Structure formats: structure tokens, C-alpha cells
């Protein structure tokens, strides 16, 4: 019975991917052309004595000695974990997310209340901090995860991926489409996953260098400060708009939605609440702006540690064509990196610190990733696959180094030297 079901799953997986390619192809053709000489990429890399590439960036399953049946077996292992958790979902998960929501709403209300006493510096600091934490919880552990459909099974409209919207400039429904579909389906496929450098930064040696890339560190700093608007414009595909690949009339519906949402957010933070606090208007405005920027920088930091640190891999369009579900799991595993930390850190990062588990199981409630991590790590050991995990300073440090190095031309051999891969 179980065997039959697994076989069915695999077949369906393959069919499903074919359909994805068909849907995605009309967009991907143009984007792939913008990358120079995909064919020559493999030539610079070499295969180490243990069959593992030391050209860190781009890899294939074959380089890890995995056949398609190995990948099927790998996929079946992860499928089994996924099924086990799905059948165990219940009150515990709902209680958890409601507790986080209660804390978030309490901090938001409390923070805004404290800013009424903004003339008293400790109150201003505490109010701003509470509001920043509320926005971070709202965006990361609640918004990101709810909009992934992690709680759709509850049928609670408050926890519905279709109905939730978050406290940030980007409209939830727009983000859901680009993130859940493009990024999670085409993870780290250069040319298809627009989250590779977010179409602003040169983050991979496989992205063509132009003098524009010289500004990489500056763009990254600006993106960190204005991350919520960066995410909003990402959906508009602002880069394609600027290059003329996309017309304004084509972009307008998305842009209008993004601007309307940004306006509502701005009215709330920079008009209504400052007015409500009367003489404290300017102090409230400053507090709200600080909370927004703090959230922006934090979200940028965590999210950039997801796929860009040393030891994360990229994939070619060819490698990922007509991939099996097992290969999809392989790609998610190797394209993601974890950040180590305590329980509070995981909560504040929306459990995106468990980026590997998140990419393997994007629709399982994120608070379970920590429980699954040891099992995922054990599977990696069994299959001789790397499990990229490190502290925040190490992971983010390597992202910063990469952003700076990629400002200059080339970088493939630098990447190989700077990011040696330990299997």
C-alpha cells in the first residue's frame, strides 16, 4: 500500500514539474539570455577527491554521486517526514501561532500607547522597541508563515494564506504569488529565481558584471534600510520596467496595488498615530520610522542569510528541467543555509533561521522546523550532502563579503577559494 502510494507520488511529481516548466518558460527564456555563457560554467570547476565540487557555486546531483533513484529515495525520506507532520497537525500548532499573534498585537498596541508619553525618553525607547518587535513578529513568524499556507488546514480566516495581510508596504497577495511560486519552485536557479540578488545586486559570479555592479555595497545598504519598499517593487519587477522589458501598462495593476498599500501604511504610521498623540506628533513619527527601519534591517539580514552565505549552491536551468520531486528536495537542501541561535532568535527570525527545513517543507508550521532539523541533518549525513549551518556573524559576514566581491568583475575562482565546501 505504502509502496504504491510512493510510486504514485513520484510520477505525479514529475508530471507536475513538466507543467511548471511549461508555465514558466515564456518568462524564463528572456531572463536566461541575460546571463552570459551558461555552457562554459562547468569548465572552471573541478571535482574533488571525494566527488564533491570545490567550485562552490553551481552544482548538480551527479557531483554528489546521486543517481535518479538515490534522489527518489531522498525525496521519499522527506515526503515521509512531511506526511508524518501533516497527520499530527492540531491544537498545539493553532495554540502556538495564536500565542504569537496575541503577543504581537499586545506589543503593537502597547508600543503605540507608550509613544503617547514620548516626552519621557525611556517611554519613547520602550514604545519604539515594542513596535519594532511587533512589526518583526508580524512580518516574519506570523505573516511570512501564514501566507505560506502553513495554517490553511485550520480553515480559520484569521490564519488563511489568502486573507492575511502583513504590516509592511508590500501587499500580501502580491508577495504570496511571487515568493511562494517563483522563489520556492525555482529556488537558486540563476535566471529563474528572481530572489537571486533580488534583481538589484550581483550576488553570483554567474550574473553578468556591468559597471552598475560597482554600487553593490551601496545598493545593499539602501535595500536594507528600505527593505519593505524593496520587496514591494520586487513584485512590480522594477528592474524589467527600467530596462524596457516590461511596459508601464503591464506593471500598473501591481504597482497601483503596491502604492495603495504603501500609502495606507504611511497614513497609519506618519499621520494617524502622530495626530492621535497630539503634541507628541513628531516624536511619534520618529518612533514609528525607527521601528519600520529596524524591522527592515532585521528582515534584510535574516533573509539574505537564507540563500547567499558561503556554501549555498546554485543550479542551472538545464539541471532543473523536468526534475523529479527528489531532485527538487535536493535543490532546496543545497540552496539554503541555516542560522544557529536560541529560541528567541528563531522566533524573531520567523524560523527562517531554519531556512533548510523551511525550503524542504514550506507549508508545514514553521515552529516545527527546530524539531525536524536533527532528522534532516541525519538524512544529509546518510546521503553525503552538506547541511549548511552557522552562527549569524559567520553567515551574514560571508554574505557581506560576497556582496563586496561581486561588485568587481569575475569572482568565480574567488568564490571557490573563499567558500570551500565541506560535505
Amino acid at each position, binding site marked *: 500500500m505504502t509502496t504504491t502510494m510512493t510510486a504514485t507520488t513520484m510520477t505525479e511529481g514529475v508530471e507536475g*514539474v513538466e507543467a*511548471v516548466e511549461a508555465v514558466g518558460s515564456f518568462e524564463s527564456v528572456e531572463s536566461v539570455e541575460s546571463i552570459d555563457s551558461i555552457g562554459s560554467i562547468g569548465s572552471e570547476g573541478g571535482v574533488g577527491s571525494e566527488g564533491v565540487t570545490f567550485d562552490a557555486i553551481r552544482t548538480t546531483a551527479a557531483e554528489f554521486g546521486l543517481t535518479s533513484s538515490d534522489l527518489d529515495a531522498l525525496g521519499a525520506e522527506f515526503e515521509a517526514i512531511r506526511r508524518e507532520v501533516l497527520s499530527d497537525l492540531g491544537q498545539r500548532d493553532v495554540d502556538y501561532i495564536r500565542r504569537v499573534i496575541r503577543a504581537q498585537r499586545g506589543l503593537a498596541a502597547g508600543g503605540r500607547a507608550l509613544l503617547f508619553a514620548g516626552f519621557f525618553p525611556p517611554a519613547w525607547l520602550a514604545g519604539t522597541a515594542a513596535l519594532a518587535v511587533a512589526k518583526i513578529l508580524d512580518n516574519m513568524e506570523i505573516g511570512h508563515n501564514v501566507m505560506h499556507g502553513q495554517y*490553511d488546514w485550520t480553515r480559520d480566516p484569521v490564519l*488563511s*494564506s489568502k486573507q492575511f495581510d502583513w*504590516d509592511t508596504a508590500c501587499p500580501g497577495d502580491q508577495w504570496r504569488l511571487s515568493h511562494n511560486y517563483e522563489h520556492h*519552485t525555482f529556488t537558486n536557479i540563476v535566471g529563474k529565481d528572481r530572489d537571486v540578488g533580488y534583481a538589484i545586486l550581483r550576488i553570483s559570479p554567474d550574473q553578468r558584471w556591468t559597471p552598475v555592479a560597482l554600487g553593490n555595497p551601496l545598493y545593499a545598504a539602501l535595500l536594507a534600510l528600505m527593505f519593505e519598499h524593496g520587496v514591494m517593487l520586487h513584485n512590480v519587477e522594477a528592474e524589467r520596467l527600467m530596462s524596457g522589458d516590461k511596459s508601464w501598462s503591464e506593471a500598473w495593476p501591481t504597482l497601483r496595488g503596491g502604492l495603495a498599500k504603501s500609502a495606507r501604511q504611511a497614513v497609519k504610521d506618519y499621520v494617524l*498615530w502622530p495626530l*492621535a498623540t497630539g503634541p507628541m506628533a513628531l516624536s511619534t513619527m520618529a518612533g514609528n520610522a525607527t521601528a519600520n527601519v529596524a524591522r527592515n534591517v532585521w528582515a534584510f539580514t535574516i533573509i539574505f542569510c537564507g540563500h547567499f552565505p558561503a556554501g549555498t549552491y546554485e543550479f542551472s536551468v538545464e539541471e532543473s528541467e523536468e526534475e523529479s520531486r527528489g531532485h527538487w528536495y535536493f535543490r532546496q537542501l543545497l540552496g539554503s543555509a541555516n542560522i544557529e541561535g536560541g529560541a528567541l532568535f528563531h522566533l524573531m527570525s520567523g524560523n527562517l533561521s531554519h531556512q533548510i527545513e523551511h525550503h524542504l517543507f514550506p507549508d508545514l508550521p514553521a515552529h516545527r522546523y527546530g524539531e525536524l532539523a536533527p532528522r534532516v541533518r541525519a538524512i544529509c549525513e546518510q546521503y553525503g550532502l552538506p547541511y549548511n549551518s552557522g552562527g549569524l556573524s559567520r553567515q551574514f559576514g560571508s554574505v557581506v563579503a560576497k556582496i563586496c566581491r561581486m561588485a568587481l568583475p569575475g569572482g568565480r575562482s574567488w568564490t571557490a577559494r573563499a567558500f570551500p565546501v565541506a560535505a
Partner: protein
Amino acid sequence: MFTETRSWRAVQRAVRVADMAATPHGVDRYVELVAPTWSTTEVRGRVALVRRQTDNTVTLTIDPNRNWRGFRAGQHTQLTVEIDGVRHTRCYSMASSAAAASRHFELTVKAHPHGTVSNFLVEHAQPGLVVGLSPAQGAFTMPALRPSRLLLISGGSGITPVLSMLRTLCEEGHTGPITFVHYALRSDDMTYRSELDALAAAHPNIRLIRVFTDEPGTGDLDGFVDLAQLADIDASWAAAEAYVCGPAPLMAAVEEIFAQRGIGKQLHTEAFALEQVLAEAGSVGGSLRFAASSTSVPSDGRTVLQQAEAAGLRPASGCRMGICHTCACPLQAGTVRDIVTGELTSGAGADVRICVSVPVGDVEFDL
């Protein structure tokens, strides 16, 4: 009404401003954490009283929030409860008087063998339980100008909407003749026995007939409904407006009697609210209906998304492998099987990823 007053308009204006200050979540999402039944728009209620009249039923008195606009006798509400973290919605008819001064209303739920919601309520409902409600709905109601002669027939737990009619008529001081016929399996299986006795005793215009089909000789009459029995109950039955709610065979029998007499227009029926029964897993066939586009196709075993596209629909879709939830769409009726997990999902309102779901029997989607 209160909705028209100046103070209510001021409240609504204040709520709009507060919603802007609480964007994107809105005021409700904050207040409900402190007061679970409070909402500016949604109808919710709190169970105020619980009594268990028989072994397998529970009678709930519900205190609805201010968004509840009352009901007409015979109508139902969609009740939502959370069971092990999952929300379930079922229809239940109000059993209380629609003319009562109190805003509270009463529902009686009978446990069905495989009923998730009914069993939960019968076993676990207690005062304080917060439930979601829909506004009262349903066309199984009496005209505002009450018919002079009434025949109310019910079977089993179908008693609730017709009892609501009876209670409402009594409260309104209706004087025309009312015949109330109820079929139960056994006398200990019948809800509202003492209430009905009291109503009949206090109102000479009510004639109460109880039939216990498993216990011949114990009720007012024996056997199932037929023309002879109906004539025996009320010689002028054909002159009455009739309201019937109960199991399908009862309703079919009454419908046939009225149709044969050519007075089908005088008969009003309410389908007995049976809980969803899981269809046989893995079965093929059945029909796949897309309600929003008024399209129906015979199900061919492929995924709902594939069949929808084959039928010319263009539902939203993304990864087509069950990951991204772009295609998630509410199931209206029926059961689907997840081809990745094998899991079955049933019932109205469940969000289903149609790219990895195949229909099991008749299925309807809001597409």
C-alpha cells in the same frame, strides 16, 4: 432600528478611523483577543446554556453578538466550531421562537454516527464555548400573513425548524388550528417532549400527534405516514399549509400525497441536514462541478486543476506540485483526495490545493 440612529453612524465612523489606524489587520483582530465574540462585522456567539435532553442530542442556547439580526421561524444558521485546531461549519435550524423578546436562540444537535461536529457538540459543548455564526438563512418559512390552518410534520432531529414555527405561532397568539405531527424511533429518543405537551395543554388550537415507529402502541398513532394516516390525523389536512422537515423517506411520502391531490403548492419542505459522509476513497466517476462558472463535467480521475483547465477554466495556479498554495480554492461540497499524502478532505469551506487533489465522487468547487 438602532442601525439608523445618529450614534450608530458615529460608532461606524469611529470604527472606520480605528481600522485605518490598525491597518492591515483592522480593529477586530485586536479586540477579539480580549473579547472573542466582539466583532464589527462578523456574527459570533457564546453558548449560554447547555442541556442534554436525550443520550445523543444536545440543546444549546446561544447568545449572539450584536451583528445577529434575528431570524424567521424555520431558518438555519451556519455554525462554526473549532475541533483540534480545525474549524468546521455545519447548518443547524433554530428551534426557539422567532418572536421571543430575548436575543438568545436555541439549537438542538443530534449526534450522527460519523458526524465530526455533532459528536463534538454532544460530547463537549459547555457554556462559554464561542462559536461562529452566519446570518439566519433559508426559505423554509411561513408567510408574514400566517396561514389560517397549519400542518407541521417532522421526523427525528428535523423537529427543530417546525418546533420554531410552533413556538413562534404560540407566542404571536395565533388562533387558527395547528396540527403538529412528530415521528421518532422511540419515546426516549424524542426531544422536546415536555415542551410540546405543555404547549398543547396551554393552547386548545394545537393538536399534537406523536408516533414512535420502533415502539408500536406507545404513541398516539403507529406506522409511517400515508394518506390514510394523514386523513386520520386531520380530516381537513388538504386545506392546510404544510411544513415538513425530516428524513428523506418521510419527506418523499408526504410530497407524493400532496402531489397526488394536486396541492403540491401548499407543501413546504426543508432537506434534513445530514452531515457529510466520507465517500469511498479511490472511487472514480461522479461529477465535478465548478459553481462560479456554472460548468459541470464527469470526473475523469485527473486532478481538479487539470480537469478545470480541460473544461476551459483558468484557475490561479503556480507550482502544480502542492507547494506554493497559489491554486488553493474553497471546496463547496464533496470529498477530494490529496495525491501526495492520500489525505481525504470533505465539507464546505475547506481550502484545497486543486493541483494535487482528485475528486472522490461528486465534488463542487467555487471556480
